């Protein structure tokens, strides 16, 4: 048993497209006896109609599929990660995007699949960033991803359609100018753990939809999640359990703190200049619950907590340990923290 790692990119890598890497995987990873890892390089933006479908492989908890960035290639490896605007930007790191109507950027039909540190975009009408389809999964994991979709929801399509597993420390941006699109929608009878997510619609777009939308029969656990810019934080409260979450919605379900001022929580909340790093003095800072298994590190690979407690949302605001070092030194502090964690 081992791990087979292949490189993906357009500069003399093993594969020039992510889809070709997937197609070359053994049909049965269990009998093959290896876990398969695709490591992406930021040689150029990955674009296609539907960028990637992962389907048809037999996997288990040992022999599974991982798609991530090669060392130093993710937006959260960027030297300026603490000061870069937190939004889809291929110059910051590996980025992949669908370009076709109704297309999904990444379609995961195989359980146990892991996505890490990717920027996932879509800017075609009714496209979705990430889709797990309708079949219930148990163990798909999405870690530290930035999912930023221009027009996911003219007919109610979500940015992320998830059917079981965990999404952690990720940013989900629904940039539909019209329609009722959601942020994260979970499928029928699925069990999902959503931890430290920031799910937003930019503040200058029409308020609509629900940040989290669950179909019936499932169990969705929200912890330390931020939901801003939507009509509702969740579609049906009975389908969710929430712990230390935050929203701008007035009178949200139990487990959410409501009526927070949107523009006070993030650096820039308008669409064109959007930047969803947590803002100094915001209500998300130090108000989350400790979760050493799922909550740390944050989307920028900052170890949590920085300060008294975990922050709500994907971004951990870097605070001076002794209380007297200004935020201007945050990049230095970040470098120290990263060196200690990795």
């Amino acid at each position, binding site marked *: 048993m081992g791990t087979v790692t292949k490189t993906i990119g357009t500069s*003399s890598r093993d594969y020039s497209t992510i889809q070709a890497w997937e197609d070359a995987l053994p049909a049965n990873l269990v009998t093959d006896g290896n876990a398969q890892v695709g490591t992406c390089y930021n040689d150029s933006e990955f674009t296609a109609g539907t960028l990637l479908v992962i389907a048809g492989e*037999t996997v288990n908890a040992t022999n599974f599929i991982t798609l991530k960035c090669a060392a130093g290639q993710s937006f959260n490896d960027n030297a300026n990660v603490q000061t870069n605007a937190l939004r889809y930007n291929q110059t910051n790191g590996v980025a992949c995007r669908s370009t076709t109507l109704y297309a999904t950027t990444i379609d995961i039909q195989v359980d146990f699949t892991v996505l890490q540190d990717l920027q996932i975009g879509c800017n075609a009408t009714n496209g979705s960033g990430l889709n797990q389809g309708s079949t219930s999964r148990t163990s798909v994991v999405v870690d530290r991803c930035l999912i930023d979709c221009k027009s996911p929801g003219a007919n109610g399509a979500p940015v992320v359609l998830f059917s079981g597993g965990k999404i952690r420390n990720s940013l989900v941006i629904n940039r539909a100018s019209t329609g009722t699109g959601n942020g994260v929608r979970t499928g029928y009878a699925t069990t999902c753990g959503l931890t430290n997510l920031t799910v937003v619609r930019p503040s200058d777009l029409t308020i609509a939809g629900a940040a989290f939308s669950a179909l019936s029969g499932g169990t969705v656990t929200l912890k330390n999640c931020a939901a801003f810019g939507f009509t509702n934080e969740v579609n049906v409260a009975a389908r969710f359990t929430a712990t230390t979450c935050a929203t701008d919605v007035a009178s949200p379900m139990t487990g959410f703190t409501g009526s927070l001022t949107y523009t006070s929580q993030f650096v820039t909340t308008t669409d064109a200049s959007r930047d969803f790093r947590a803002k100094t003095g915001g209500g998300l800072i130090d108000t989350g619950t400790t979760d050493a298994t799922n909550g740390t590190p944050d989307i920028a690979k900052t170890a949590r907590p920085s300060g008294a407690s975990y922050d709500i949302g994907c971004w951990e605001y870097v605070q001076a340990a002794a209380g007297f070092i200004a935020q201007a030194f945050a990049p230095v502090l970040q470098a120290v923290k990263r060196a200690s964690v990795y």
Partner: protein
Amino acid sequence: MAELLIRVVDKVNEDFYLNCQCTKRGDVVVAQPDGWAWGLEELKNPDWRIVVMPELSLGDAQAMLAPELDKDPKSPSKTLQRRAFKFDLDALATSSPDAKAFLADGKRSSPIIKFVADVKDAGVAQVAIATDVLRDADSKPILDQNGKPTPIMLAVDQTATKVSAADLLALKVEKPPTPDPGIIGDNKLAVIG
């Protein structure tokens, strides 16, 4: 205008339903624009071939990537295939001796074939392909000034064969639906249909 990575050997999963989602002989895995920098494994994998076809529009090429769609979304099929269309490679081999030899060459001694419409463009041409990257004594890639591995470029013969885009598109076949063995009567309906 397009370059196609085509599967020539079925990918097979012993699970019936998962097998439907695997690409099969004649399926286009990816379609890219002219001049695409193919990866090292893409040039070597014996289950694939690369066809360069300047005359074929990228739109026509990418249409080959469409999956089979549910005819009744309210009753989702479990046997939808990864690709709705394929190229009939056996017919292609029959129509062109060069293509036949290319498709049969599992060693991929010539990793790419170029299809041209005009016979005067046919023949052998040399193209540069990357075969590996420069490595140091520890087998680590030597990076260029942009921090990227330095490719080892090799000029190889690329067969150019007279097959027009119309010829190729004439070999585009819509796959029949796969009957679901879990549904009584599904197979019978497919046979009748």
